[in-house]
């Protein structure tokens, strides 16, 4: 299990970790900065993490995926700091003998990450900024 908080997403590192002799299918999900949100033009995103707890939560989620599916390996990488439009900010991935498990586990990892991992995103628009999801 490769779980890390990084300054830059490393796609090749994630892929190499998932590559095993028993793997027939590898799924990678990469979240990237989209140019619009809430009808506004996004200029950049800033990510802040409660790093020790975020790493523990990411490991917990990875462990849960390993228990639920027959996986070879699991990857979760998340950035902190500022990211421009188009840049990757998160990778989740899983490898398995068969593709169904790899797809399902990778989806589970990103869905869970968004629910529980203590990382926060601030969106900067042309003329304002907002912490995503903070207010009702």
């Amino acid at each position: 299990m490769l779980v890390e908080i990084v300054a830059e997403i490393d796609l090749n590192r994630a892929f190499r970790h998932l590559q095993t002799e028993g793997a027939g299918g590898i799924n990678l999900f990469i979240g990237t900065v989209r140019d619009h949100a809430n009808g506004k033009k996004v200029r950049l995103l800033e990510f802040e993490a409660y790093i020790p707890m975020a790493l523990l939560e990411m490991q917990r989620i990875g462990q849960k995926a390993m228990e639920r599916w027959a996986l070879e390996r699991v990857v979760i990488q998340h950035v902190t700091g500022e990211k421009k439009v188009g840049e990757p900010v998160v990778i989740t991935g899983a490898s398995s003998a068969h593709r169904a498990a790899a797809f399902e586990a990778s989806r589970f990892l990103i869905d869970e990450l968004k629910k529980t991992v203590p990382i926060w995103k601030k969106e900067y628009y042309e003329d304002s900024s907002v912490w995503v999801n903070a207010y009702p």
Partner: protein
Amino acid sequence: MKILLFGIAREIAGQQRLEVPPDEQPETVADLRAWVNKRYGALAGLKSFAIAVDNEYAEDHVKLYPSSEIALIPPVSGG
């Protein structure tokens, strides 16, 4: 007792951590929530906030100790 702040909570409070005065030490997570709501009303306006104790989400009944690492977790938005 210190409480770590992140994201919007850090911005609202204008600081990276809250310091609980010695004579107001909360005994449980529920007590801490009450203290935060009373002292930092603006935080109550958030959609929700969780309390983490020693790097784990903690329910209201969890006991707090002076040595605990306590953090206030506003709604997460990673990914």
